[in-house]
């Protein structure tokens, strides 16, 4: 390591002086041969107008010249099917570009979503090389608490070497990712606000049940605005028209996607029930919001809209609809969502907007991109990270693969499948745009609005219900015993009541008794104390 640093430093000095006289920039090949003369020549001149960031790139190129190979930056994230078939080709093409642009090779290490969380933790703790990684999977706070993540502002790393990041990511979004004042991650650019309770129903089922859509007005995102009574009515019609299909595909998302309750600190054991106005930590499971949901599900279950296997079936809600035996589900809306959900469900879906827009305290900081604390060359890593956010070529490679093979560009700059390729045969189709550092730097898929990036930014900015605690993060490791017990209590008693298999009166009492016995009050008090301290420091009241 020391030796490596020494060589790096030496070459940095050499190139620094060189570039002062404007030679190295255009002819890096001559570096080694002209070193001596250059040093003597430029002994007096100062380093000139080359920024440290450009400098670092030149240094790496010079290093590569000497070693015959470029240093490598490994980027890890997950997809749904494991490493794509064309990953080596993509890595090679991407590296050809980044060698020229950044003086590094880039390797995408894509892991199956089921294994990612374990694998990445293992790599981070065992010292295996992985430089940049998405915390989607292991969780941001887990990575920070375990010390896996590097401080991005140490010696002004971010400001010096990746100034471009500050242009695309707003400073309040950076602040939302700070833990104890330290910045460990950069949030992906995406929809942070959500349109809660978007009921998605297969269009064919609506038609089959003769649901009249013309009486609904559309909201600002273009989805049908309707009330819960309307939903009940539609479900009743669908149930009648398709008696052998299950109406509603369940998942445990009534709070995450169906409410404006803020799961402050990353879990629902102690929440903000009125996050836009109050910082009081309360028990959501005793709240009216939760009770309303449970009543609704109880009613639906009694009416036969919910499968008897809802508690055991671990398939995703959309995968079940894709299978053809389920008709509706709930998710959260955002711009261009209808296309996404139709793709996931394998059939045209109609989206109904029943809830309201909301931005939770952890919306921004739920899964930022981080640099491994063990990374050998953090400068190279952050420069690659900057390219992921700002360079369309890099973003396109990571999001969509190779132009002309995986996708072709239309006249209006949208893209579609390349010749003879579709989602099943594509050799590179991770399908995790929402996790990508900046999906809007890449092309837009045909059928989505071309300005989806701006639409999303406006959607985020105009969200009327923003949590007051935006940016609050909490290290719960002091309360791990309580957390473990709470988690077990929740899993033991929640299923019956949230899927409506038991009368909410008894079900909720059971759940709350179990949570209290597991230490909910202590846990909430600790959370409240941390929140108060944070609010005081941040000047929020």
């Amino acid at each position: 390591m020391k030796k490596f640093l020494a060589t790096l430093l030496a070459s940095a000095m050499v190139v620094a002086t060189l570039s002062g006289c404007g030679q190295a920039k255009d002819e890096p090949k001559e570096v080694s041969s002209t070193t001596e003369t250059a040093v003597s020549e430029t002994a007096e001149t100062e380093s000139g107008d080359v920024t440290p960031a450009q400098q670092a790139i030149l240094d790496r190129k010079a290093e590569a010249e000497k070693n015959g190979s470029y240093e490598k930056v490994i980027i890890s994230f997950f997809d749904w099917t494991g490493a794509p078939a064309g990953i080596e080709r993509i890595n090679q093409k991407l590296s050809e570009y980044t060698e020229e642009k950044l003086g590094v090779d880039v390797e995408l290490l894509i892991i199956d979503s089921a294994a990612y969380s374990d694998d990445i933790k293992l790599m981070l703790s065992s010292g295996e090389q992985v430089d940049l990684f998405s915390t989607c999977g292991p969780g941001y706070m887990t990575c920070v608490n375990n010390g896996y993540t590097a401080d991005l502002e140490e010696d002004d790393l971010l400001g010096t070497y990746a100034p471009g990041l500050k242009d695309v990511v707003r400073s309040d979004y950076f602040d939302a990712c700070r833990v104890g004042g330290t910045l460990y991650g950069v949030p992906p650019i995406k929809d942070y606000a959500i349109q809660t309770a978007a009921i998605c129903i297969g269009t064919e089922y609506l038609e089959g049940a003769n649901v009249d859509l013309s009486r609904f007005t559309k909201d600002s995102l273009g989805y049908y605005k309707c009330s819960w009574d309307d939903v009940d009515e539609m479900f009743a019609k669908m149930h009648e028209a398709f008696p052998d299909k299950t109406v509603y595909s369940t998942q445990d998302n009534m709070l995450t996607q169906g409410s404006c309750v803020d799961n402050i600190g990353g879990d629902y054991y102690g929440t903000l029930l009125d996050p836009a106005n109050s910082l009081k930590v309360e028990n959501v499971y005793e709240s009216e919001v939760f009770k309303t949901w449970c009543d609704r599900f109880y009613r639906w279950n009694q009416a036969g809209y919910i499968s008897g296997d809802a508690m055991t079936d671990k398939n995703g809600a959309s995968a079940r609809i894709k299978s053809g035996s389920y008709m509706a589900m709930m998710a959260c809306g955002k711009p261009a969502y209808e296309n996404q959900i139709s793709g996931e469900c394998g059939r045209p879906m109609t989206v109904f907007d029943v809830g309201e827009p909301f931005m939770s305290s952890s919306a921004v900081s739920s899964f930022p991109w981080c640099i491994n604390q063990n990374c050998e060359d953090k400068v190279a890593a952050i420069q690659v990270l900057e390219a992921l956010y700002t360079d369309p070529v890099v973003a396109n490679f990571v999001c969509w693969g190779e132009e002309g093979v995986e996708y072709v560009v239309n006249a209006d700059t949208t893209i579609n499948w390349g010749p003879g390729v579709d989602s099943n045969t594509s050799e590179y189709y991770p399908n995790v745009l929402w996790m990508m550092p900046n999906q809007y730097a890449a092309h837009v898929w045909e059928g989505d609005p071309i300005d989806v990036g701006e639409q999303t930014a406006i959607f985020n900015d105009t969200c009327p219900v923003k949590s007051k605690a935006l940016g609050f993060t909490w290290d719960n490791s002091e309360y791990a015993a309580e957390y473990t017990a709470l988690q077990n209590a929740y899993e033991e008693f929640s299923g019956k009541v949230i899927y409506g298999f038991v009368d909410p009166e008894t079900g909720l009492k059971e759940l709350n008794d179990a949570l209290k016995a597991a230490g909910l009050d202590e846990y909430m008090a600790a959370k409240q104390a941390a929140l108060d301290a944070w609010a005081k420091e941040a000047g929020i009241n």
Partner: protein
Amino acid sequence: MEKEKKVGTDKKTLKKRLKRYIPIYFMALPGLLYLFINNYMPLPGLVLAFKKFNAKKGIFGSDFIGFKNFKYLFATKDAFVITRNTILYNLAFIVVNTVLAVFVAIMLAEMTSKIKKTYQCLILMPFMISMVIVSYLVFGFLSSDNGFINNTLLRALGKEPIKWYMEKKYWPFILVFVNAWKVTGYNCIIYLSTILGIDRGIYESASIDGCSKWRQITKITIPLLKPTIIMMTLLAIGRIFYSDFGLFYQVPQNQGALFAVTNTIDTYVYRGLLELGNMSMSSAAGLYQSIIGFILILSANLAVKKIEPESALF
């Protein structure tokens, strides 16, 4: 003089023995090396159980926090349930599986027909199946919408369907049954090989003396199997604080309503730490399990030694 001579021969024989057995030691070397690397080298890492792990500081550089990592295993009301479940299930497994395995082994040994090998393979089959698949086989029987028992069996009998995954009372039996079905074939191999190793001459003379098959089994086979049974049981007792994660997590489909009868130490730790990813707490759980296991195996062995010295492990 006498003594000196003895020591002399001892030394000589030791030398001789070493010389004679050196090739065998060499043969054992890879195994010993493996044992050392795999089982002894990670031991210092146990210190992690008493620390707050931080990747920046490393395993040995992290801060000591005493017994705090163990708190979650004892301080909650679940501690009793998970410990009880783990121990009682394992006790039931030890008894049921041993009886079944010995029974099957004797049956197989007494069999003379050609299809014996086929039986042996068939009975071993479940052991080869992954727990995830087993869980779906069970689900195929018990599912409330499409399950075989509810939709075919109970309907044919004119009975009401049962919501299997919400009724706690059935699960102790289901789990013991599934476990026995899965491991009996494997466990019986050892007993079978012991039986096949018994001198056939004993049986022959017994039958000449007019001994019935049943008496041969009770008076010859089972007594001669006893040391093996004791050894296997002792080993099982050493693992009484561990549970088969797949069996307790996958087979009940991770069903919350069944936790009171399916939650064991392993599943509890897994569920709790899945989100936290706290290495120190998981190593605390591991250390706790192995220490209790160590104590149990020592005391069980001591008890065996008292009752029947020649059957003790060490």
